[in-house]
């Protein structure tokens, strides 16, 4: 049976991309699969009675070591902010390449808590910071110090003890460039180091509450129960800074989406489905339906999506109960879901299908990186007619957008001088549009197309470039999209109707985040590693932890 990949014009719409869920291809899960046979150890806990000081965790095998150095500092309540404009945090982290010396730790102590204002070196791989969820942290410490376990209702409503507010890597603030580590076998998947940092930071949060509870009352304190700890992840609060990444890295975005689409296609192509496989699917479906109740959000946008998801899942179960295991069962099931449910439900089912076939899906996680340099150059020997055809075939959706209409050019993206992070503003009421970042892809390709249409189609692109270099940045993308069709978001990223949270959700779903909780249309809180094995039990992981019941 001929079953094609889903078309880019279907997949690459933001309302669908913004409905993606974590899956077997998510980076935190592939991190655990890759590193489960490494040794994880707590090397040093140097904290005072209030929990201030530093800790070191090491991940190693016979030939390689990585260390997470964590710093815990006092923070007044009025200084605690998740906004990226904050300058102080409860905790800060740096992933070190190897084992840090005493001198390294002193140097890092002077710099890492400062984050963007400090400097790190090429010995360091990733940088991050986190704030306590004060209410949960205090409750847990208070209960443990009294010899009691915390109230899981309070815990699971939040889902974590600390939340990170940024994770930096790849050369930022003096960190090692990606080129330093890109050939290491264990780092072949995207964001492996960032995932390592977050996994180890989660362990730090558990050690922290145990330490402070003990210091508060050494005689009565108990340790946080492993079953409770396992159901806590680490939070993350993310704003617009993350959104341009998926526009600025088209080749990489293609790899992520293409791998996911290949997984779905391979599953839909399976002619036979066994009862056992269907049973596995059923069990994941049941668990996810129960876990959705822990997906708390005050966002009207997400509440609406979650309500639709719950309703769609009810309809889906009715459909499922009436079906029998006919040939190409998964394909029929998928087509029903695509036809009858919203993207939020449809993409959840895609993720669930992947759970049934680890052997088909997991190898694809090694196809999710790419050498972007290979796609940087422009083939100037191509004709103008060729380029117009490429635009018509791959960017047809933008040709008819009227970019003279105010709503279609309402926003502009810029780089904040204060925090060196991308931001978005109203072009017509705020200053700075002259410093707009090159993220208005739809508008610029539209304008390029109009220009090219006035040229001789047989003329070489090189001739056009002799006269104008204004759209060189999007010409590059047109060639990328020719080879890598899932490289472009097929929506106008400067339109008034843009929901930037969809862009964040796309990236975060590939990270493996759950419990998306938009706090506005521009920032979101999520949870990572909730339900994941603890550091001491990582070797036992069978990669089914994402669909364990939370409580």
């Amino acid at each position: 049976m001929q079953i094609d990949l889903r078309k880019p014009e279907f997949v690459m719409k933001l309302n669908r991309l913004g409905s993606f869920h974590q899956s077997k291809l998510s980076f935190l899960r592939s991190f655990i699969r890759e590193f489960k046979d490494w040794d994880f150890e707590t090397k040093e806990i140097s904290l005072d009675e209030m929990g201030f000081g530093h800790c070191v965790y090491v991940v190693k095998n016979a030939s390689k070591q990585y260390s997470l150095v964590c710093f815990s500092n006092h923070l007044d309540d009025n200084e605690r902010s998740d906004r990226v404009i904050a300058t102080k945090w409860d905790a800060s982290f740096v992933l070190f390449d190897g084992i840090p010396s005493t001198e390294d730790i002193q140097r890092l102590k002077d710099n890492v808590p400062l984050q963007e204002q400090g400097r790190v070196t090429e010995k360091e791989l990733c940088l991050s910071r986190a704030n306590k969820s004060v209410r949960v942290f205090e409750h847990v410490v208070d209960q443990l110090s009294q010899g009691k376990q915390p109230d899981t209702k309070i815990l699971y409503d939040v889902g974590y003890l600390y939340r990170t507010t940024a994770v930096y890597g790849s050369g930022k603030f003096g960190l090692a460039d990606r080129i330093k580590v890109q050939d290491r076998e264990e780092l072949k998947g995207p964001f492996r180091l960032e995932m390592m940092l977050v996994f180890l930071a989660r362990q730090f949060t558990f050690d922290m509450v145990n330490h402070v509870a003990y210091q508060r009352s050494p005689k009565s304190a108990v340790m946080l129960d492993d079953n409770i700890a396992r159901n806590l992840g680490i939070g993350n609060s993310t704003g617009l800074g993350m959104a341009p990444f998926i526009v600025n890295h088209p080749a990489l975005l293609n790899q992520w989406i293409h791998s996911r689409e290949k997984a779905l296609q391979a599953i839909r192509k399976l002619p036979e489905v066994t009862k056992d496989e269907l049973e596995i699917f059923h069990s994941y479906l049941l668990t996810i339906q129960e876990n959705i109740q822990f997906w708390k959000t005050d966002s009207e946008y997400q509440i609406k999506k979650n309500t639709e998801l719950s309703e769609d899942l009810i309809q889906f179960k009715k459909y499922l109960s009436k079906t029998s295991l006919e040939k190409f069962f998964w394909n029929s099931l998928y087509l029903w879901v695509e036809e009858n449910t919203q993207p939020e439900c449809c993409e959840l089912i895609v993720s669930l299908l992947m759970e049934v076939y680890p052997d088909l899906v997991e190898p694809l996680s090694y196809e999710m990186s790419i050498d972007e340099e290979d796609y940087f150059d422009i083939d100037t020997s191509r004709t103008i007619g060729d380029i117009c055809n490429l635009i018509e075939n791959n960017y047809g959706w933008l040709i008819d957008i009227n970019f003279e209409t105010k709503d279609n050019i309402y926003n502009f993206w810029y780089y904040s001088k204060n925090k060196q992070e991308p931001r978005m503003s109203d072009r017509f009421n705020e200053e700075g549009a002259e410093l707009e970042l090159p993220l208005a892809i739809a508008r610029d390709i539209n304008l390029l197309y109009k220009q090219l249409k006035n040229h001789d189609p047989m003329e070489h692109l090189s001739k056009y470039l002799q006269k104008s270099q204004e759209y060189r940045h999007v010409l590059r993308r047109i060639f990328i999209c020719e080879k890598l069709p899932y490289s472009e978001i097929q929506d106008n990223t400067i339109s008034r109707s843009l929901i930037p949270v969809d862009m964040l959700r796309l990236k975060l779903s590939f990270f493996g985040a759950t419990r998306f909780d938009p706090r506005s249309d521009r920032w979101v809180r999520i949870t990572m590693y909730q339900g994941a094995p603890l550091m001491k039990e990582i070797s036992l992981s069978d990669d089914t932890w994402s669909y364990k019941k939370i409580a």
Partner: protein
Amino acid sequence: MHSLYEIETTVKRVTKHQGLSWGIAEEAGKIVRILEQSELPGLESFNRLINTPYSECTKSIDLQINNQKQLCPIHFGLFFLDQSHHFENQNQFHINSIQEPLLIIPFLIKAAQKNLITFNFSSNEINFTITPGKVVSFDKKNIPPQANNIIFDISNQRQKQYSDETWNYLYQLSLETFVEESEEKKLSGAGAGLTDND
């Protein structure tokens, strides 16, 4: 020291700040990154360029005009990166001066490899040849802020770099790895039958 990422993004933004397009800015960031990664002073070169002042640099490259002055190396390099597929056989251009010639090198390397051509750059201050091969050499300690009286040759004809004596000697030595064949082997060694008329 700063990471290559920081260098690339900073150069990209500064290039944009000079009024160039984002596409050119991306190229500029990339070439300075390549130079720094190759332990060549690309960032210093770039800094001098924008303080020329940059507005005085000639950005329009026109090969029909001989002896253009104070050419911008980014535009010069980009020109040859974009246009090199047009060149056939031998081309020679005379240029009065180019600012910061170091910055043109990564562009020319890409153009040479992509189009299998050779660039020969001769000037009062610095000479270098860039070929489709991987090796480029010049005096790192003698990188001038400006190159004057330039003769710039482009060729798609590979030049022989050795004598016939050297070739003959080496070729004869290479034959020593071959096996002398008997008459019988000549008949059977290639796998053919005694008669091929079947």
